[in-house]
Every structure is written in C-alpha cells, then in structure tokens.
C-alpha cells in the first residue's frame, strides 16, 4: 500500500459528497458542511500523494483488478499529482467563497441549492481527467465535468446566461464529438484505448495516419483549452456566469484541455513533427488574446481575454518540448490556475462593492476599500509577470527555453511572449487607474453604494452593513455585509497561494522539471502501466 494507491479516492470522494449534498438539498447548512469537508479531505489525500510522488515515481492503479491494457487504469505521476493538488486547492477556496456569498445574501433555500452537488461532480470530473490512463475514460471525465459545467453556467436560468449557455454547450458538445470520433479512429487503427498501450502501438503506424489522428486530437483539445483560433467561444460565455463559477471555470476547465494536450504531445505522439505549427498557434493565441483584452471595459470579459492569451504561454512551453520548456509550462499551468482564479474572485468582490464589473462605472475603490486594492493589485501584477512574482518566474523559464532552442521562430515567440506580458501590464494598469485610483465621482453612471456616504459625511467602509434604503441593489433585504469575511477570506487565501508559488519556486521548479523529464522519457509511464520492459 503506497500513497498513490489512494488515487481513486480523489474521484470517488467528490462523487459521494455530491450524492450526500443532493440528499441534503433542503438543508443548506448541512450541505455546505458536507461539501467543504469532502473537498478538504480530498485535498489532504492529494497533498499526501504529491509528497510521495517524487519517491514512488509513476504509479498505476488498476481499477477492478483488470489487467491493462484491458481494464481502466489511473496513473499518478508528478504532473498529475501537482495538477490535482492545485485544482483541489482552488476548488476548495472557490467553494468557501460561494458558500460565503450565499450566507451573506441570506438566500438559504433558493434554486442555487443545486450548486453544491453539481460543483462536486465538476471536481470529480476534473480529477478523473487528470488521473486517467485510458483515452475513453478521459472522454468520460471530460463529459462529467462539461455536463456539470453546463448546469453551473446556466444557474438561475436568466436570459443572458441562457444565451451564453447555448453557445457554450454547442461548442463543447462539438469538441467532444471530435474527441469521440478521434477515439473511434484510433481504436480502428490500433485496437486499444489504453494510453500506455497506444504510446507503444501508435509508433508502428504509417506517419500520415499518425498525423491525422494527432491533429484530430489536438483540435478537440484545442477547443477545450481555448487555443486561437478555437478560442472564440470563451470570452463570449464565461463572463455571464456567477462570479465563483466563472472563477473555477477560468482556473480549471481550460487547463484540463491543456493537460490533455500535454499528454498527447509527450506520451501519444512524441517528436517534433508539428512543433512549428504549435509555435505559430501559441504566438497567435498570446497576441490576439491580449489585443482583445485591450478593447474591453468589463473586467470579467477582459480577464477572459487574458485567460485565452495566457493559454498561449503554456502552448509555447509545450511547443518548445525541451525539458526546460515543458518544465516551465508545468509551473506556468500551476501559477496561472491560481492567479486567474483569484483575479476572478476579486472581480466578484469588486462587483459586490461597486455594483458592476464595468470599469467605466467604477472608481475610487482603492480608497473605499484598501483591502480590495491589495487583493486586486497583487494577482494583477503576478499575471503581468512583474518580478518577483511567480508569473515572472514562469515566463522567464519559457523565454530561457525559447532562447536555448534558438531557431528564428523561437525568437519570434520569445518576443511575442515579452510583448504579451507588457500588454497584460497595460490592461491591468487601465483597470487599476479607473476602478481603483480615480475619484468615484469621475465614473460614468456609478452605483449608488459607490457614492453612498454615512450621516457624518465619511464614505461607507469595507464591511459596513448597508441597509435597504442605501441602494436599489440590496433593497428589501436585511442589512447585508458588502465584503463579508467568508468571501474575502478565501480570496486572501488564493492570493497568498499565488505568493507561495514564488516562495516555493525552488522545490516547485525542481518538481515540474522532474515531471517534464518523466514525461519526455515516456518509459516510466508505459512501464508503470504495462509492466517492466514494455516501453523499450
């Protein structure tokens, strides 16, 4: 019995939690307690797995005792263990934030009680996708998380969410169909869906057939990862969902696509056959994404565009596919999940404090709520890649890898990466100047709470209770807290996790470097699943 044998629990526990919270649908307090404790236990198990991963190496768990390649295997290596820990950590933070929002608003028994079971199913799907060593099981994992995300995306069923949900569902289903079609063709060509077995058998195929299968898988995952030109759907659909939902989608769902792309590139189809194509795609994703962000005035949409743009960095590292490039990409994925999620959570707080996420209608937040200012500033600078934050370290690793490769295209990519980083800083500075630094009176059509002042003339503070007559937004409700601790707490935690990525950069980079080497070697993965000697 070793730590990696606990892997199935990362999937089973959230599912069990979902079942229990579904039964408790009328008891929101118990529901919250169950879902938060389920995710906490899952996180602890995953941390144990991650700590043990470097010493045990790649380990495969055979589900139901079926011998691979016939049965389904779950594979724990350093990359998947790291992804599991980061994803569970941010899921837990977002869950506490969402529960805090529900408590602060006092909607105890609304239709949103479906939130907890669906959310846990989403987490189970994400864990399944990270762990599985079977291509069809990866499809099932994707479907679990996507179906849960459809429900979360259209939560409440308002007109804008339905409109955005339709686009999202149709695009996701089409990408899943493409994935299913590729699986069918891969099965037709090789007679197996076990990824380790495929890694051995795909090499024996005709190169042209290999290329077709390779590109089909990449297109299917490219849509999920929102890689340009397959990224059009993301800024259209994410911003309308509730703030915590957008935060967890932005952090996790695209990264599952990136994870699948990494596995395709390293395990199934190694070699540099399409690396130039990936480099061009990475460059376009970075530059086009950030130019889109420059045009936006809604912070949520703007962040969705930076999300697309920064997926480009991960594809950048993947396209370089050297040990240092891939290692930096792994580190960058961990960094980006944390930072992007915290930015979306802060945007939720901004929306709550200022009544809108549109920067034209915001102002003076830094003075009204210095805490909010710090909470936005730190991850914003982190995203832009200002030293000494983790965004800088990740980008530095990628640029080093690009320069080491030394081809003209790699240098163009390095230049594109630096430019994107600079433009990200510009985008963040614009938000900062408008929403935080200028006087609230300069805002166009500001929300009443932004201008509200108390009887003595001083402005309404951070967590002051606002009564109904202060604003139309909270009218008719009991006094609500503008920035309740249950919402700021998890946000502070995530911003702190982003900073911890800098403090722990040494061991983390060593880990991601090892993970990259493990993936480039391929034999540890194949031998862990199929037994010694199979990967030779």
């Amino acid at each position, binding site marked *: 019995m070793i730590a990696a044998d606990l892997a199935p629990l990362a999937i089973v526990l959230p599912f069990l939690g979902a079942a229990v919270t579904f039964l408790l649908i009328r008891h929101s307090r118990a529901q919250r307690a169950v879902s938060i404790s389920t995710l906490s236990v899952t996180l602890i198990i995953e941390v144990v797995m991650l700590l043990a991963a470097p010493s045990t190496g790649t380990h495969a768990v055979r589900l139901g005792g079926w011998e691979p390649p016939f049965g389904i295997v779950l594979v724990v290596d350093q990359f998947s263990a790291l992804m599991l820990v980061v994803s569970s950590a941010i899921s837990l933070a977002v869950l506490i934030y969402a529960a805090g929002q529900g408590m602060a608003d006092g909607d105890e028994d609304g239709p949103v009680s479906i939130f907890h079971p669906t959310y846990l199913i989403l987490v189970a799907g994400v864990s399944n996708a990270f762990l599985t060593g079977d291509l069809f099981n990866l499809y099932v994992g994707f479907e679990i998380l996507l179906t849960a995300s459809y429900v979360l995306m259209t939560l409440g*069923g308002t007109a804008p969410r339905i409109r955005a949900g*339709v686009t999202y569902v149709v695009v996701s*289903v089409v990408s899943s*169909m493409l994935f299913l*079609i590729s699986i069918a063709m891969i099965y*037709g060509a090789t007679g197996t869906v076990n990824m380790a077995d495929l890694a051995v058998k795909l090499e024996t195929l005709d190169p042209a057939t290999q290329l077709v299968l390779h590109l089909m898988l990449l297109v299917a995952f490219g849509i999920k990862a929102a890689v340009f030109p397959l990224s059009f759907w993301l800024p259209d659909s994410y911003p309308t969902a509730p703030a915590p939902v957008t935060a967890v989608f932005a952090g996790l769902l695209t990264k599952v696509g990136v994870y699948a792309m990494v596995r395709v590139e390293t395990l199934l189809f190694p070699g540099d056959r399409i690396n130039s194509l990936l480099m061009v795609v990475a460059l376009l994703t970075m530059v086009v994404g950030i130019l889109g962000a420059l045009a936006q005035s*809604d912070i949520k949409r703007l962040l969705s565009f930076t999300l697309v743009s920064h997926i480009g960095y991960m594809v950048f590292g993947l396209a370089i596919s050297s040990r240092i490039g891939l290692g930096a990409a792994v580190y960058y994925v961990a960094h980006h999940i944390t930072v992007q999620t915290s930015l979306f959570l802060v945007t939720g707080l901004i929306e709550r404090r200022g009544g809108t996420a549109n920067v034209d209608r915001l102002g003076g937040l830094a003075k009204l709520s210095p805490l909010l200012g710090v909470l936005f500033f730190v991850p914003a600078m982190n995203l832009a890649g200002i030293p000494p934050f983790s965004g800088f370290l990740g980008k530095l690793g990628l640029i080093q890898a690009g320069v080491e490769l030394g081809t003209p295209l790699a240098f163009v990519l390095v230049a594109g990466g630096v430019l994107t980083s600079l433009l990200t800083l510009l985008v963040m500075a614009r938000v900062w100047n*408008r929403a935080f630094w200028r006087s609230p009176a*300069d805002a166009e059509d500001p929300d009443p709470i932004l201008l509200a002042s108390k009887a003595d*003339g001083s402005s309404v503070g951070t967590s002051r209770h606002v009564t109904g007559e202060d604003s139309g937004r909270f009218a008719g409700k009991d006094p609500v807290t503008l920035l309740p601790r249950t919402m700021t707490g998890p946000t502070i935690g995530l911003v702190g996790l982003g900073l911890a990525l800098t403090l722990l950069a040494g061991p983390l980079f060593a880990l991601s470097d090892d993970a990259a080497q493990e993936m480039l070697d391929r034999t540890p993965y194949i031998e862990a699943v199929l037994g010694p000697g199979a990967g030779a």
Partner: protein
Amino acid sequence: MTVNLTLIVLLAAFFAAGIYLLLERSLTRVLLGLILLGNGANILMLAMSGGSGRSPLYIPGTPAEDYADSLPQALILTAIVITFAVTAFMLGIIYRSWVLGREDDVQDDPEDRRVADQDSYDWEDDADVVAETSEFFDEDAPAERTGATAYDGAATREVRTARGDDDAAAGSRRQGDAL
C-alpha cells in the same frame, strides 16, 4: 480488418446532415444536428470495431476470431447515454430561451456589439491632462469634503463638454447604451 460499406455510407450521410444543421441559426435545428453528429460518431465506432461475429459468451473451442469485438459496443453504450443527457439538457435550455424571449435563434452577444461600436477615442486615455486642484482641499474636514466632491464633479463635466462635438456625441451615445 473488414469494412462495412453500408455503415460508411450511413455515417457519411449522418455527418453531412449533422454539420449542415449545426450551421443553422435555429436552436432546434442545431440540436438535431448535434444528435445526428452523435449518432454518426457512434456508427463510426461500430464501423471501426471490425466485422460482425458471435456474442461475447464463452463457448469452449470457439476461436477468438469468431467473436465480435465487444469493447466498442461498451464505448458506444456510454456515448449514447452521454448524448442522451446532453440532448435533454439542450432541450431544457432551448425551451427556457423560448419562454424568456420567444426566440428559437442563436442570440447575439450585446456586449460584443457594444465593444465593436465604441469609439476608438477614449477621453480618459486620450484627452489632454487637466490640472487637478482638488487634492489641496483639506480631506479631514467633513464639511469641506462634500464641497470638494461637488467641485470635482463639476470640473469633470467641464472637461467632458470641452472635448469637441464628435466626442460629446459619442459620450452621449454611450450613456444612452448604458441606460
């Protein structure tokens, strides 16, 4: 591996019709397109599983080649269930879309339209910097403070009216959109 021609023709027809319907603007047709695509993918899986054969019940003495490959059938079954769930959900949101807006069409994103229509001139980014005097007011005195805010607002309005007719028109249009 043997290939069944009927299945290939059938799935080609399914894919063609599915993609055609998917490109329509009516949501019901998009859904029908997705269903056809899903069925096409399932037929493809079946076509890829090789020739037909015995059911996978163990009969001693039967050579392995006589059995039909049962794994793709299990995969198809899973895929059918998933497509079924997604279809039900799609029907739900199409109905909701109909209830809310009497619309069965794919809707435009209003924010996209707004961003596309906006002026490239932004008075805060592009206008001349005005001398800001309000910071010299005593911030601690409550009475003075309200006066300062009022003055601040007036100054802003002055800047806005001073930035030319075109921009004023753009500004008023933006305000109109916000309303």
